[in-house]
């Protein structure tokens, strides 16, 4: 069957009209995934229970039940727990860890009979922008396999973009879903902080993390989001439904022009400006806005995030689960387990986190960064008094070459410059394909990022749909 660019909506129609069964659909994806995964390394594992899952979905459909996601084959990032399956966070330290329970989002998806094809590659514990920090080798961009798919959720992005799944889940701490979505030419949507329960997602930066969908269309992102969102008593930051505003149709777009001048490729900025012209023709108003503290966002993020990461990663000590390396004594057990289990970037961020939290430095680094974070939040708050949506490119560059930035951590960090402020403020944002730019012989996708105020997640869908219609 023809899988190319198949959407959730189209697959739903095929399933409901009995043109295909969930078992046939899943088998077609497994076959394609097995054929293409050698090249893309999108999946760390293609599950062997896909057929049983699909049978369950067919039964739900036959019984007249089900919803939009019933029987839809999905790619799940390797840091989201599916009971009975390995969840490694693409780390050696959890290489053989079998999840003891289902994440909240997995429960929601199992309830409606969605099908999990496999677990996808990522930067170790979601730290990175390219998947090169995976302990199991990088994933490749389906548009040019010499290039990275973005990260950290690069495996899910490559799987969806390469038609190795209809849609997928990732986690977005500083852009880890929007950036790979942009670089792979698909849609990535980070909901408001607290919109989706993180129960069963491996914690990285707990004040930043959000489970987020990858899809081929904005409409599909809405379907997947609707299925996984909602209050859950096991995540104390999960927000009640009343927090979220009903859909509005945003018309006034703010662009932080001054912030978009440094470190961005000229042709990316050009395509961005052309896209805004198209939006104007569509009836949108585009105005220049100031976000004066945005220039500090990346620096503040690379203090807050490692601080939280070093704290969260303290749990991986080889005592209760995961890989264990014996040392000379208990302390040495920890040292050896963690020294061997964590990759280079994880070790780097653990040490930075320990530094910025340490006595004598915490005021100048961690506490100052949280103060700056307040300024960033306030910038957004002020800007949204005047505009409905803020637009930026998702990433300042298209996909770079594998290895190009691997030895320069700071260069890698700048890939997140436009996505990080969104997590710092906790607001929702969506990346929608914005055309391509040329590098060597490849036409490489880039993305448009639309940002909405807290709780206005649903406002991103109408503008996103308009955008994908007018930008071809």
């Amino acid at each position, binding site marked *: 069957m023809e899988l190319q660019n198949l959407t959730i909506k189209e697959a739903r129609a095929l399933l409901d009209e009995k043109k295909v069964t969930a078992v046939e659909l899943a088998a077609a994806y497994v076959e394609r995934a097995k054929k293409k995964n050698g090249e893309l390394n999108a999946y760390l594992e293609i599950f062997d229970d896909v057929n049983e899952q699909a049978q369950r979905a067919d039964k739900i459909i036959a019984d007249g039940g089900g919803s939009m996601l019933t029987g839809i084959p999905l790619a799940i990032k390797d840091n989201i727990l599916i009971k009975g399956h390995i969840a490694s966070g693409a780390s050696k330290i959890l290489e053989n860890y079998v999840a003891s*329970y289902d994440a909240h989002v997995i429960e929601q998806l199992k309830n409606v009979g969605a099908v999990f094809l496999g677990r996808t590659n990522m930067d170790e514990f979601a730290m990175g922008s390219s998947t090169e920090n995976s302990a199991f080798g990088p994933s490749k961009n389906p548009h040019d396999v010499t290039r990275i798919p973005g990260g950290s959720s690069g495996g899910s992005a490559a799987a969806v973009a390469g038609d190795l799944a209809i849609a997928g889940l990732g986690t977005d701490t500083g852009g880890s879903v929007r950036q790979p979505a942009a670089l792979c030419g698909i849609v990535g949507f980070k909901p408001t902080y607290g919109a989706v329960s993180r129960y069963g997602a491996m914690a990285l930066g707990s004040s930043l993390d959000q489970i987020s969908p990858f899809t081929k269309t904005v409409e599909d992102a809405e379907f997947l989001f609707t299925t996984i969102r909602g209050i859950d008593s096991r995540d104390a930051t999960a927000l009640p439904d009343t927090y979220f505003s009903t859909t509005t149709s945003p018309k006034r777009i703010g662009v932080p022009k001054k912030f978009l001048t440094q470190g961005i490729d000229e042709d990316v900025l050009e395509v961005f400006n052309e896209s805004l012209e198209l939006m104007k023709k569509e009836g949108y108003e585009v105005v220049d806005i100031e976000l004066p503290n945005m220039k*500090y966002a990346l620096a*503040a993020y690379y203090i807050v995030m490692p601080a939280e990461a070093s704290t969260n990663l303290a749990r991986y000590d080889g005592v209760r689960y995961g890989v264990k390396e014996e040392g000379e004594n208990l302390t040495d057990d920890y040292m050896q387990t963690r020294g061997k289990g964590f990759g280079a970037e994880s070790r780097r961020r653990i040490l*930075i986190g*320990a530094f910025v939290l340490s006595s004598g430095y915490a005021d100048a680094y961690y506490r*100052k960064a949280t103060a*700056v974070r307040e300024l960033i939040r306030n910038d957004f708050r002020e800007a949204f008094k005047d505009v409905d949506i803020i637009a930026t490119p998702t990433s300042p560059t298209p996909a770079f070459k594998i290895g190009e930035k691997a030895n320069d951590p700071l260069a890698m960090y700048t890939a997140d410059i436009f996505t990080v402020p969104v997590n710092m403020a906790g607001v929702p944002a969506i990346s929608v394909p914005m055309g391509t730019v040329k590098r060597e012989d490849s036409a490489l996708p880039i993305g448009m990022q639309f940002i909405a105020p807290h709780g206005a997640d649903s406002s991103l869908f109408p503008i996103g749909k308009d955008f994908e219609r007018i930008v071809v």
Partner: protein
Amino acid sequence: MINVDIEKLAELSRLAISAEEKKELEKEIPEILAFVEQISEAAGELKKETGEHYNIMREDDEPHESGIYTEEMLKAMPDEKNGYLRVRKIIAQD
């Protein structure tokens, strides 16, 4: 550039690092810190954090039926015996 005691940080973090990596980190970490230090130019004042982040606590009762995860948790342990997690002896006898 700020001088960072990598060995001390690694000890605090319970992280064994090789001499070679230590040398690399002694260069990389101060570079990263020099980059993030630009926040000192921002106007933000140190105060107690307020704002969007707050916890919504559940009722203090049984979150789930007792024991339903025990079997799975035991299976995940690197060293388990008779339903117990076996750990290294940490009190010396002398």
